[in-house]
């Protein structure tokens, strides 16, 4: 059966780090419009730390160890809202991957699903609040459908990325009701959410690591 290899997950993390570095200013500018102008720096700092440990992580034969480590590193290096949220995402995603050294589409779905659940419970938020959830929820929905429809991993990822992009753009018109942007009330409308944007890059990095 078609699977995602550990090496591809490593590539994923490396690509995320590259995207965060590349888009540091962009993400920060988005955050400066409706937040506190640090999201890009936060994400870059966190994933640079992850990359700093990548050689060590490469030794591991267990996807859960890889993602758990990533989650812990993000938690202890990002801070802010995105630290615990993305940290929790990877931590919870790792929980369903114990002892796996490759992931089926079903595994990918379960891990994203569990990761999203973690974000929602840690952040006490749901869709439509102008956060990363507006990307990750449709991404998970797409994954569930892909499993049901027995899609190839490649097709699933194509659909995920489309959903992520749509989700990210959908945040532009939303009124923020969670996170810093919520303080702006109506003035939050018209700006794309930084966290939704970094989530989009995470999905994009995944697709590109596997195709």
């Amino acid at each position, binding site marked *: 059966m078609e699977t995602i290899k550990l090496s591809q997950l490593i590539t994923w993390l490396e690509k995320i780090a590259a995207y965060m570095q590349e888009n540091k200013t962009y993400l*920060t500018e988005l955050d*400066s419009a*409706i*937040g*506190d*102008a*640090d999201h890009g*720096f*936060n994400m870059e*700092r966190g994933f640079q730390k992850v990359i700093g440990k990548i050689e060590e992580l490469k030794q591991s034969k267990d996807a859960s160890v890889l993602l758990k480590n990533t989650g812990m590193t993000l*938690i*202890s*290096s*990002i*801070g*802010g*809202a*995105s*630290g*615990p*949220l993305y940290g929790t995402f990877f931590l919870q995603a790792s929980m369903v991957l114990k002892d796996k050294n490759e992931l089926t589409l079903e595994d990918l779905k379960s891990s994203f699903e569990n990761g999203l659940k973690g974000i929602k419970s*840690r*952040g006490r938020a749901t869709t439509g609040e102008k956060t990363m959830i507006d990307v990750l929820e449709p991404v998970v929905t797409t994954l569930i459908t892909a499993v049901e429809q027995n899609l190839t991993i490649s097709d699933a990822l194509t659909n995920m990325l489309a959903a992520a992009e749509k989700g990210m753009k959908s945040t532009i018109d939303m*009124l923020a*009701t*969670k*996170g*810093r942007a*919520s*303080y*702006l*009330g109506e*003035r939050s409308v018209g700006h794309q959410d930084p966290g939704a944007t970094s989530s989009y890059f995470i999905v994009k990095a995944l697709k590109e690591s596997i195709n």
Partner: protein
Amino acid sequence: MKKLINKVEDVITEQMEGMAAAHANIQINLEPKYVWRTKETKKGKVAIISGGGSGHEPMHAGFVGVGMLDAACPGEVFTSPTPDQMYECAKKVENGGGVLFLVKNYTGDVMNFEMAAEMLNGEGIKTQNILIDDDVAVKDSLYTAGRRGVGTTVIMEKIVGAAAEAGYDLEQCAELAKKVNSRGRSMGMALTSCIVPAAGKPNFDIAEDEIEIGVGIHGEPGRRRIPITTADEITTILTEAIFEDKDYSRLLRDWNFATNDWEEKELVSKAFTSGDKMIALVNGLGGTPLSELYCVYRKLDEICKAKNVELSRNLVGSYITALDMQGCSITLVRADEEILKFWDAAVDTPALHWA
């Protein structure tokens, strides 16, 4: 960007080193970052710890010392510190009395401090989290992350710190902290934006003839923008926003030591009214000269007198800042005997000290 800094990456570390060099009453740890008091505490004293993003100096590190905080965890600029920082810091200063985290109500701070509290309670170190959510600029907590924590933080740290020093236990300190939070209200405004070192440019653009009403302490834009006006008018806007604020109720999370889980509890802040006695903080946001704050205090005092509200104690100065932002905030905390007693108690920290 014009700042007295070296490399952007080193800003927090170097400022901590400077503080430690200047003040014998505090010590610093760099990996992970925290600041703690030099003088040993009495066995069984509750450890009062705060923290949050940097950029608000002297808060919090400037309030570490006898009679106030046992320790503070500085995060990156405007970014909450991380759970491992808080955890290490708590382990360092906990002395048998448990830990009280004083947390400003921002999504990031709340989540990171909750994770730290979970870790500590998981290890049997009794830890409670208290939120500060006093910013009346944030109107409806149903449609927001709730009110931001601003100026009341300074006053809470002083009062709860004194209570812990005087022997209050964890539950008593937590109760007192909640009381202070329920009695505190703040409102701020900015003349200019601040510049985050890593960003190198202002967070928001604002014209020479505009000011921003209802800003927080993170260079985030406020609720509305108005043409520039007089200090009296500005003070009136801020003060009236505080007094017009009705009874305010919200659910805040407590750690329940019986169930070992979070539990939501209602906290009600009663509207201010004639006859109240206040601790007042007229606070500069970092780039505003002290002299201008006195002009604000003058009008605040006048307005309060007209409302039959007494400013029993006050602080005028830059205590909770937003880097180099020009602007000010007003905080009023409705005092009672217990609060005044602990306000007046001796304190010896880099930023506040009296005997």
